[in-house]
């Protein structure tokens, strides 16, 4: 076995980041927040498009949804998480994460439950429409509900972790 090499590295970032000049962290954060706020419109449009795709391909009214690759549902849900930086107080990111957890766990447990998917999709629609008007407590209760659905219909991830 070849022994590991340990290398001391000085990057340009380390060299230049504290050379004076630049901006204060609080100003940097303010400017970055403004940039995110400026992306709210395009982000919401992209989220709506993804949710429409989810409904069309994986929703209760989608004919032949059983034939759709479930990985695409995972990718769409993950995309919603990425874009929800500008709607953090809607719970949309957590709802989409719950859907990712559902798909991932379903694949691991080799169990699929369309009703659980339907509940997640309708909850995402609800969070998109009214999540920002809800209190954190209410949003938390909604997300807890999704986690319970997954545990009841698919299983507990802890049992999977123990069995592997």
């Amino acid at each position: 076995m070849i022994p590991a090499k340990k290398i001391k590295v000085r990057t340009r970032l380390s060299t230049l980041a504290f050379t004076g000049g630049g901006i204060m962290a609080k100003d940097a954060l303010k400017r970055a927040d403004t940039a995110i706020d400026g992306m709210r419109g395009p982000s919401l449009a992209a989220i709506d498009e993804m949710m429409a795709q989810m409904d069309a391909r994986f929703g209760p009214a989608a004919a032949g949804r059983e034939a759709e690759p479930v990985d695409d549902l995972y990718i769409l849900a993950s995309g919603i998480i990425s874009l929800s930086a500008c709607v953090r107080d809607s719970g949309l990111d957590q709802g989409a994460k719950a859907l990712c957890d559902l798909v991932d766990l379903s694949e691991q447990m080799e169990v699929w439950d369309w009703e659980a998917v339907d509940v997640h999709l309708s909850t995402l629609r609800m969070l998109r429409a009214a999540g920002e008007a809800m209190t954190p407590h209410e949003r938390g209760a909604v997300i807890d509900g999704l986690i319970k659905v997954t545990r009841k219909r698919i299983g507990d991830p802890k049992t999977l972790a123990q069995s592997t």
Partner: protein
Amino acid sequence: MPGQVLGGDRINLERISFLLVDENQTSLDITAGVVAGFGVRSITKCQSVRDAKDVLRKGNTDFIIADAQLPVEDGYSFLEWVRRETEEPTRFVPAIIIVGHTKMGDVFKARDCGAHFIVTKPLTPRVLLDRIFWVARDERLFIDCETYVGPDRRFKRLGPPVGTSGRRADDLSGKVGSAKEPNLSQDEINDLMRPAKVQL
């Protein structure tokens, strides 16, 4: 370990070139907006690993922020390529992987890809700036071995897990042995606490 960035801290990223890799154009624009807010002037945006590799081959990249979920080749594999296949200094470039959700099967890939940090989405400026500060102040050694190339992952230095003797030559035993020197007297302790006049 470097701590959280404070509002009064200054950072100068004007001359640091960032490479951002994300398949989704809107998500890419969000990250670019955040990074530009931090004062970065040179930002290269790529929507595929192929384009990102071309950029890296040309050199002059100082920081990589890549999405884990990319088509054809994911962000973890891309970063492994950076660590194993590129020349210095590119192979040592600080890198953050951003991820919307990590599948259970991808946890080890995330751990082993050679990233300085894995940051979860949705991206917040506070978390990203904290991590950039952290990496800038980071003095971790780079490890190059058969199974891993990247910054030392064992940076917390909390000692070996309880009940094991550890694998590092300088790992200390978890057992507290008997004292080698006599205990300090109360006067000696008081002396340590006594306010002293210092010349600044």
